[in-house]
């Protein structure tokens, strides 16, 4: 077989983690990005609040403090060796982006400003007003442009080429031209981002369908800690769009239907700046107990007391968004909010160098993962705000370097199988098939099932019902009909393929949630209310074995901080 396309290193996903990895890898070897959207359309641009690092620009701060807050925030499930890397490399990562031109907000003396975020004891979050993700992605893409790194824009990755226990490349669909392509590579990075679209209300963009998770799962590779789904406390009601935590970091209040700052009941010390898991549960509890605004399923996020000047300086995007999407002026009116699916702490299990590991905890040759689709794990059971942009750039860079070294030390492996004809046959079957099930029906039912059975509060019976529903939907998906059979820019086809990905790992989320019989971080079981360190201070692994999902475990790495009761 002749390979027209070949790169030493392939990055699947053009977001912050993918681009950062590509930039690093390109220093070592020939690198290309394959992304289903243009890199500037990635979901990292939607990150608003900031990126954390113990720069100590306003108060004395240290990486140890950042580490403690992160580990405590994770409900002690984060791997402390990984967290140590994250927080120690944070300042350098921020300076690097600043040197590339990110217009970070400043202090009066010209240094980087830092603000409070949920779960931090100190103002530690650097920001570019409330468009930090946008600012970072655009400057990073500028570096990609400068290096002229090849980007296969709007290509959807259908399959990994896996033979002889190693990854040898990818099979992709060129969306604009409707063509199948095989790209050979020595190393492949999965940086496919979030999966919020598996739920019906999310702050995630349309493309957040976790395709990389499905690819790994398909080849028997484990996903780690999939039960930990982060609900962001303040999703714009009822759209689910993100209202950044920076609003509370700058002093915004959460108010219930009785006009109370109800967080005093749940986190008397940190109040609105409690971590996201606690704040989301608090809001949902208020709503359940009839204290929503006018007994409706939302509460108010009030920032009127901050005044127009501060809002315009620190939170202009929030004001603009509320005006555009809801016709609300946040200077004069409170914002209706309800928790929305926001982030996945779990993902493809990796080492600290981004190597994907097998269920026997051994690195898998040639396959890497970074960013939200990976689980290192630095967030454990609950991520603190402003740590995800940080994870993308720190572990993206590390994975890029690791791949670079790997690619330099190895040669291209021979691909033996008929990957192209097989993929062609698959696509032909899809294009000429006469299935009965419509994509939108199956997807809506899946999203509703996940929302109903695997939300903020979970319980055995409901989770089991959820699994049954998803299994049925997986069956129905085999009979899906492709309603648009054009080969030019077929976005319907992409939605059908994405649905296939989502159904694959939706079950993994439910199975992991059912398996963990305790409440920890974002995983709240109403039938197991307490954290249980004796039995559950361990990571969940879920992987495919003989076409069934199997459960395994990975020990938590504890180095400096002993688990303790978590109070805010």
């Amino acid at each position: 077989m002749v390979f027209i396309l070949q790169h030493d290193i392939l990055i699947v996903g053009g977001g912050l983690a993918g681009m950062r990895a590509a930039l690093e890898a390109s220093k070592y070897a020939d690198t290309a990005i394959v992304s289903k959207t243009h890199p500037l359309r990635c979901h990292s641009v939607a990150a608003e609040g900031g990126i954390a690092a113990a720069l100590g620009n306003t108060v004395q701060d240290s990486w140890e403090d950042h580490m403690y807050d992160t580990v405590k925030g994770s409900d002690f499930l984060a791997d402390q060796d990984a967290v140590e890397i994250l927080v120690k490399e944070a300042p350098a990562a921020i300076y690097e982006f600043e040197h590339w031109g990110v217009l970070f907000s400043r202090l009066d003396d010209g240094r980087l400003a830092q603000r409070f975020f949920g779960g931090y004891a100190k103002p530690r979050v650097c920001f570019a007003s409330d468009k930090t993700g946008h600012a970072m992605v655009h400057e990073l893409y500028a570096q990609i442009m400068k290096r002229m790194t090849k980007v296969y824009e709007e290509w959807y990755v259908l399959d990994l080429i896996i033979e002889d226990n190693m990854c040898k490349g990818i099979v992709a669909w060129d969306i604009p031209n409707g063509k199948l392509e095989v790209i050979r590579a020595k190393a492949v990075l999965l940086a496919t981002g979030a999966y919020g679209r598996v739920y019906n209300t999310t702050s995630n963009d349309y493309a957040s369908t976790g395709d990389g998770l499905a690819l790994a799962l398909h080849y028997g590779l484990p996903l780690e800690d999939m039960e930990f789904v982060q609900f962001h406390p303040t999703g714009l009601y009822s759209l689910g769009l993100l209202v950044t935590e920076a609003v509370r970091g700058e002093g915004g209040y959460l108010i219930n239907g009785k006009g109370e700052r109800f967080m005093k009941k749940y986190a008397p010390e940190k109040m609105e700046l409690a971590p996201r898991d606690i704040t989301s549960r608090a809001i949902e509890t208020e709503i359940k107990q009839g204290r929503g605004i006018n007994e409706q399923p939302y509460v108010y996020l009030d920032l009127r007391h901050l005044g127009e000047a501060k809002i315009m300086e620190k939170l202009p995007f929030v004001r603009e968004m509320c005006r555009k999407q809801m016709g609300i002026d946040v200077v004069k009116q409170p914002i209706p909010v309800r928790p929305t699916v926001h982030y996945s702490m779990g993902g493809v299990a990796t080492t600290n160098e981004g190597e994907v590991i097998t269920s026997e905890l051994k690195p898998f040759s040639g396959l890497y993962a970074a960013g939200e689709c990976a689980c290192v794990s630095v967030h454990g059971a609950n991520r603190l705000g402003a740590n995800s942009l940080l994870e993308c750039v720190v572990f993206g860079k590390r994975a890029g370097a690791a791949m670079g070294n790997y690619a330099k030390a190895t040669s291209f492996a021979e691909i033996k199988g008929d990957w192209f004809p097989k993929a062609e046959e698959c696509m032909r079957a899809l294009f000429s098939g006469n299935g009965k099930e419509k994509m939108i029906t199956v997807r809506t039912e899946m999203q509703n099932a996940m929302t109903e059975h695997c939300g903020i509060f979970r319980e055995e019976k409901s989770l089991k019902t959820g699994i049954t529903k998803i299994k049925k939907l997986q069956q129905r998906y085999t009979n899906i009909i492709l309603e648009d059979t054009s080969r030019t820019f077929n976005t319907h086809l992409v939605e059908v393929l994405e649905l296939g990905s989502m159904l694959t790992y939706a079950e993994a989320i439910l199975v992991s949630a059912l398996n963990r019989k305790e409440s920890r971080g974002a995983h709240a079981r109403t039938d197991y209310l307490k954290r249980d360190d004796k039995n559950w201070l361990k990571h969940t692994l879920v992987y495919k074995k003989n076409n069934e999902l199997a459960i395994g475990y990975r020990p938590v790495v504890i180095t400096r901080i002993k688990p303790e009761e978590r109070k805010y």
Partner: protein
Amino acid sequence: MKVKLKIRKFEAKKDTLPSYKTYEVEVPETATLLDCLDKVKWYQDASLTYRRNCKNSICGSCAMNVNGRTILACETHVKHELTVSKRNELIVEPMNNMPVLRDLVVDMAPFWDALQAVEPWLQPDESKVPEKEYLQSKEEVHLLDKVAGCIMCGACFGACNGREAEEKFLGPAALARAWRYTMDSRDARQKDRVALYNEPHGAWDCTHCFFCVEVCPVNVAPMDQILKLRKMAMDAGMTNNPGARHHVGFEKIIEKSGWLDEVKLPVVSLGFNLIGQLSMIPLGVRMFTKGKMPHLIHTPIEKIKEVRDIYQLAREEEKQQRKMLAAAIERKTREKL
């Protein structure tokens, strides 16, 4: 509410001409155009093709034309659009100035190529990179961040008159970003940049139609930045090109006579360029035969002194502003020391 959408359908590889198809969807009063398009695609016609992603005016995917105006579908409320346009349907079309791939999806390669051409990345002095962050004032960040907030949706490029007339014109978004790096105190190549953007099909191809300012969903005001680039070029003495000569000539003619000498302006703009000057002759002849030829003898207006007084005032104002700026910079530097 019921919304009627008349959408332009076209598939580059299949169709020779576009066609329009009308859809009707039932949506809540708060619906955006994107909500309507999704409804059509998911429940009526899966072949309808458009880009979208963040749903929140930040990813820049869903720029398209509605009733002839370029907008982002995710932030355009259909009820409002129907009210202000006083129509009973929305005409939805792809952006202009880029080839259509399918329906509302255009090939944005020309847009990205123009962006690449302005070298849109920071180019600091590599020997002076600080160990920590560069110091930058709040004011400077404030000056730049609106323009840096460009989401590269292409709306300005699609609406650009200059680009429609000259397909080598770099267009509004690329030049706005060019200005953003030129002005960044961390960038060390201001002079080279100004020269680069002063080249043919750079800043001088803009026709001041204001469309880019009008359609920009995030208030980048690209045209304003283009005009600033021109001013920087002229201040740096880069006046030997048709665009700059046009401006200087315009200014001088008005100062001299108080009204525009339409015969002289093109001659001045073209400069010392025999072929260029000769190429004006057929136009002159055509104008003459249609009776559109301006008077060859150009006399000053009666109140010319008032015009010259305005010039005088403007020049003094500018001088004053420069003085104040210089003083402010000096003060800042002294404070730092």
